[in-house]
């Protein structure tokens, strides 16, 4: 039985979350802009003081002191993010209650949950290490984009599950897959930002950096790289477990624990790419930028697996409602 008022509430909350996150992106961008003004002024001073050799970029994890106005904007942005998060969680709770099941039975719900995990992961990181708050615009920007696309193209109304999805292992497998994916999402973004920021730091060291850049306000390349790696290290065992749980479920639902169904194949590819990322970090010649690229490839594979494999190719993995 579908409770239609709860289902409608869930849909409204989805819209509200998108609006809140969008406002948060605006606030984060404003924070970067205002922060920039002070930073630029200061670097101007430095150059004026005749110290061309010393780069005005902090290589540590702390950012140069912020103007109070920028900090206020940052706090507002974080607040909007957290409120958006509550509403976002409400989307899934209301869905689950409406359909009386775990709220990840189709691609719309799966995608929404992945994005939720990504925002939670970002929020936890930003609260634990305030420097990381400054990547907010770059996490929530893609989040808003993803949610708009999910809402437009993957939307499926609340409904019951197809028979094969009614298993205790659904809870275990899909929940861990969502967790892993959401965490890899943040990790991938950190690596993208690392790639941008490390290029910028090279330019600064060479004295050829542009006069103003939002990159100045990002955490240091080292901090971004560390964030990317730690989140991937956190996500990898979860993903490994998700794959194992999926195999256990497939064994009882489809008659074999592994059959190279397209979805399984891409889960395997993603797993191998993340294993390669963790190795690349400890392999000489691959540290730094090359390994960051591997992490970006990993995220691409995850997104491809969600979109292409579910929507274009046919396999046993059925998510009702997307046609």
């Amino acid at each position, binding site marked *: 039985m579908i409770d239609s008022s709860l289902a409608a509430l869930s849909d409204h909350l989805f819209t509200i979350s998108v609006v809140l996150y969008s406002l948060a992106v605006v606030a984060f961008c404003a924070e970067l802009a205002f922060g920039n003004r002070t930073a630029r002024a200061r670097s101007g001073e430095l150059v004026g003081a005749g110290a061309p050799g010393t780069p005005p970029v902090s290589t540590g994890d702390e950012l140069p002191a912020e103007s109070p106005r920028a900090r206020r904007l940052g706090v507002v942005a974080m607040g909007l993010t957290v409120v958006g998060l509550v509403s976002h969680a409400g989307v899934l709770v209301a869905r689950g209650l409406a359909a009386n099941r775990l709220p990840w039975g189709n691609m719309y719900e799966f995608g929404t949950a992945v994005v939720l995990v990504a925002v939670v992961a970002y929020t936890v990181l930003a609260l634990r290490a305030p420097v990381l708050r400054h990547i907010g615009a770059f996490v929530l920007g893609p989040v808003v984009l993803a949610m708009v696309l999910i809402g437009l193209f993957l939307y499926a109304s609340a*409904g*019951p*599950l*197809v*028979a*094969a999805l*009614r*298993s205790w*292992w659904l809870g275990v497998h899909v929940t861990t897959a969502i967790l892993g994916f959401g965490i890899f999402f943040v990790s991938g973004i950190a690596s993208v930002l690392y790639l941008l920021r490390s290029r910028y730091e090279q330019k600064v060291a060479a004295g050829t950096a542009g006069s103003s850049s939002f990159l100045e306000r990002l955490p240091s390349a080292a901090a971004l790289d*560390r964030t990317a*790696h*730690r989140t991937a*290290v956190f996500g*990898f*065992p979860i993903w*490994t*477990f998700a794959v*194992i749980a999926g*195999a*256990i*479920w497939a*064994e*009882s*639902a*489809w*008659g*074999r*624990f*592994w*059959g*190279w*169904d*397209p979805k399984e*194949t*891409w889960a*395997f*590819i993603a797993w*191998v*790419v993340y*294993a*390669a990322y963790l*190795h*690349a*970090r*400890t*392999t*000489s*010649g*691959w*540290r730094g930028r090359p390994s960051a690229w591997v992490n970006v490839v990993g995220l691409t*594979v995850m997104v491809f697996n969600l979109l292409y*494999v579910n929507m274009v*190719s046919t*396999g046993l993995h059925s998510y*009702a409602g997307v046609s």
Partner: protein
Amino acid sequence: MTTTAPPRATAPATPPSPTSAGRRVLNRLLRWWRQLTAMRTALILLFLLALAAIPGSLLPQRSLSQNNVNKYFTDHATLAPWLDRLYLFDVFSSPWFAAIYLLLFISLIGCVVPRAIEHGRALFAPPPPAPRHLHRLPENTELPTALAGPATLDVIEEELRVRRFRVVRREGRSGPELSAEKGYLRETGNVLFHLSLLALLLGLAGGKMWGYEGSILVTEGQGFCNSFQQYDTYSAGPLVASGDLAPLCVDLDDFKAQYEQNLTASSYTADISYQLGGADAVDTTIGVNHPLRIDGDRVYVTGHGYSPEFSITRTDGTTFTDLSAPFLPADPSTMASQGVLKVPDLGAGATDQLAIEGFFAPTGVLQGGVLTSVDPRPLDPQVAVVVYTGYLGLDSGLPQSVYSLDQTQIDRGLLTEAGRANLAAGESMTLADGTVVTFSGYKEFAAMQLSHDPGQLWVLGAAMAVLVGLLGMLLVRRERVFARVGPAPDGGGTVLSIGSLTRGSADTGPRFSALADQVRTALADRVDRSSAPDATAPSAHGPAPEKEIPPS
């Protein structure tokens, strides 16, 4: 987390003696081996493995659907044979895919086995000697104290032991020193993880060699026994002999599919009775996510459909009842199904054969004379059939699908149309020769699959070990702390140098300074105690160090 490469032995310098041809070959082989087991090679092989899996998901695979492969062959008549030559329709059993993962696993063996042995030794050996220059370690500090050298090392040793470090003291070249290590489980996890990957591969291979799988459509009231002759399709590993198959027979008594209001299937259940060897039949119910598991064999319901039932009355009064054949669902949402019922032994003559080919709709609606199905449930079963009589060609020696007629028999005029009609349950049609065909009803059939995979439990165990090893490797910090004492440069007292090296943690700084602070306090405490006239007087420097150890 880690940024240091794992220690690798550097190549031993080639001996200066004149090299014989044999030695040169050996050296070349050694160099290849070293290259193969280098981390960089492993990395490349990992990428190759990921890349190689891609065509397996983009092109149809025989292991998944022979039909899709056939369709690809008709759609791309020139390209397909070329792709086939490259094993692109059997990617996961292709030699090149195997080559990549075998190389990877050889590299893994070459990399991990020495590491495992080394780690096994390290587990029982004291921590390694302190490096010469402690100030070159990532974390390091120097603490001056008035205590004598050995007493100073006593203090830090106590601090480290409280933190559950394994500690050893040595007389180093530049004074008394101390090495401490903890977090051995990290390396244990690493070794366990990589070795479990090997075990997992062995389990997979064993399953492929000794496993088999057969599928069959079973209509209610019928059954099958576990033998390759009976299955519609089967696949078996190269080491399976047909005598190895478990003597299992299964009968399908009843099948039920349940639907939600929006007509998604909510559950399938099959009431079956099975017999193992000569034992008594056992009744049980299986369904989606609930296979029958006995003795290493599993029986699944993988799908379902309808078998329309017909009866045929010939002009001489002979009647055949309960004739049915599975019709394959063409559209799972409405269960509109297609198939053919072949009746080869209608009369004595070889050409006294009949076939009913057509379309079954569990809930039929006639629109302009065309039958369609609107509901997967059997609310109003109807068929649209064409009846052929003549010679079916079943014994011609050429294999025929049981789900369709051999079109060439029709083209050659051996099989001719004798009538066509849309029938609801209970309705009949009369053929030109007076034979009456009645659509008497339907039964459900279940697509059943029997699987046998002796490697399965092994693979599960290995996968669990992979996970446990991974958690150990990624969550445990391996810390090494080294300390050395020397005389202070100004002559008064001792300088304690401490350095530490951590693998597997980002924020080593705070932990190290916490340790250093603790040691500093303890040193000061000890100095006070030894200099105070009353050694039992409470220390002015706060509580004993042991009591304020932060959780590590």
